[in-house]
């Protein structure tokens, strides 16, 4: 019973939107109807493309995401903890944050070449920001009494990091990770606009350039589904990691 309710909640609004699309779509060249896109989806993605284009892309996405997570949290904790470090690094970080990835790519290509490392780095270059910013803010907002408790009982160094800082900031860190997930997908596409000859993003861009519009939309559909799938996985993880947070009344969700 609860299971069916969940499915209903999951699907109700999307179903409504597809109906809406059905009603308005199909009229124009650039916005084909759901039927055409559905057909294109089946033809395009249930093929070797899945193995040759989609899987490597997803692999790079996950690698970049993981790296961004490590980097974002790894930098965010010291930056959040030290006012001086924050004052020093913030302008530099803000500088890089404002540079559009498409124009950053040539620089990354200069430094690491044009193969997989470049694409992973491009993904990192976008994903890292929400994680970093949220980590910094989460660390800054740690409870003072808990911090004092740690100091009193000599909890410091790695133990403090693991048992206090990371756990205490985890609600914010998880927010950042959640943000980064979809940004990662977007950057996966952007990274494959350069120096590529395969990949999900590349394929979508190619469809767009070759005016295969239904196919292009089917690729976007796939991106959306990928994002949805990953976010559902992410939620399971989050419910585990933050069970104390949602249980404790510190948050009401």
């Amino acid at each position, binding site marked *: 019973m609860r299971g069916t309710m969940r499915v209903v909640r999951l699907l109700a609004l999307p179903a409504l939107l597809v109906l809406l699309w059905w009603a308005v779509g199909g009229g124009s060249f650039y916005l084909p109807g759901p039927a055409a896109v559905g057909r294109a989806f089946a033809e395009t993605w249930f093929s070797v493309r899945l193995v040759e284009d989609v899987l490597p892309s997803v692999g790079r996405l996950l690698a970049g995401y993981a790296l961004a997570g490590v980097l974002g949290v790894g930098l965010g904790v010291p930056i959040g903890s030290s006012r001086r470090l924050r004052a020093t690094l913030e302008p530099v970080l803000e500088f890089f944050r404002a540079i559009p990835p498409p124009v950053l790519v040539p620089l990354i290509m200069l430094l690491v070449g044009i193969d997989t490392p470049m694409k992973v780095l491009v993904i990192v270059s976008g994903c890292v920001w929400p994680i970093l910013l949220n980590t910094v803010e989460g660390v800054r907002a740690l*409870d003072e*009494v*808990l911090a*004092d*408790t740690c*100091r*009193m*009982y*000599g*909890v*410091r160094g790695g*133990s403090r990091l693991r*048992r*206090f800082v990371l*756990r*205490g900031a*985890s609600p914010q860190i998880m927010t950042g990770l959640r943000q980064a997930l979809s940004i990662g997908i977007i950057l996966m596409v952007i990274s494959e606009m350069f120096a590529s000859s395969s990949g999900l993003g590349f394929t979508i861009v190619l469809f767009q350039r070759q005016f295969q519009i239904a196919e292009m939309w089917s690729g976007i559909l796939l991106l959306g589904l990928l994002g949805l799938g990953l976010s559902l996985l992410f939620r399971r993880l989050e419910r585990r990691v933050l069970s*104390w*947070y949602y*249980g*404790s*009344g*510190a948050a009401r969700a």
Partner: protein
Amino acid sequence: MLEIHELRKVYESPGRRVEAIRSITLGVGAGELVCVVGPSGCGKTTLLRCVAGLLPVSEGQVRVSGVPVTGPPPDMAVVFQEYGRSLFPWMTVRQNVELPLKEKRLPPARRRELVADSLRAVGLSDAADAHPWQLSGGMQQRVAIARAVAYEPQVLLMDEPFAAVDAQTRADLEDLILRLWRDLGVTTLFVTHDIDEAVYLGQRVVVLSSSPTTVMEDLKIDLPPERDQLTTRSLPRFGELRGHVYRQIQRARGER
């Protein structure tokens, strides 16, 4: 053991400047148990945090074992007034109590023993696997006490540690602290607003005036060292001391 010399503390925040402590000079000998009482908001918590090295002093000095305090000294345990916020919500009760012991690198067997003992002492053996937020206020406070007790500190600072528990539990916990103090010789600074408690527990009771805060009286409690909830509290001298402190506090409040 603890020497507080002309301590002054002023909180400065934009638009508000509070002189929480004007000047406090106070010494606590090794193995002594001193209770601090004073009107609400007079600076007891502030004093404790300065002694614990958690708050920079504005003027004066605090020494622990002769060493000027700049950060938290080792082997000191604190029970915070905000007991709810001082427990890690992501850890179970057991983990909360065990954490400082891990930091002390005690062997696991010893840790388990200390945790079990201290939880039993505060009456929370059943709740070891619960998270703090699944407990009542009084239970949370007892977890914080258990953590301090299990730590086996040399100096123990307690800030209204029994505020949230019922009378009977409070009596039990008082005796727990007395036992700990006597058996291990823990130097203890105990903030309370319960005058009976201060007289019952303390070797000395320090009465703070209300703002601007100074030491109003440093009263030696000349009750027999062996204390007992029933007999000690019914001694005539107990009543006298109690009345004296009460009047002092009333004077302290009246002065503002």
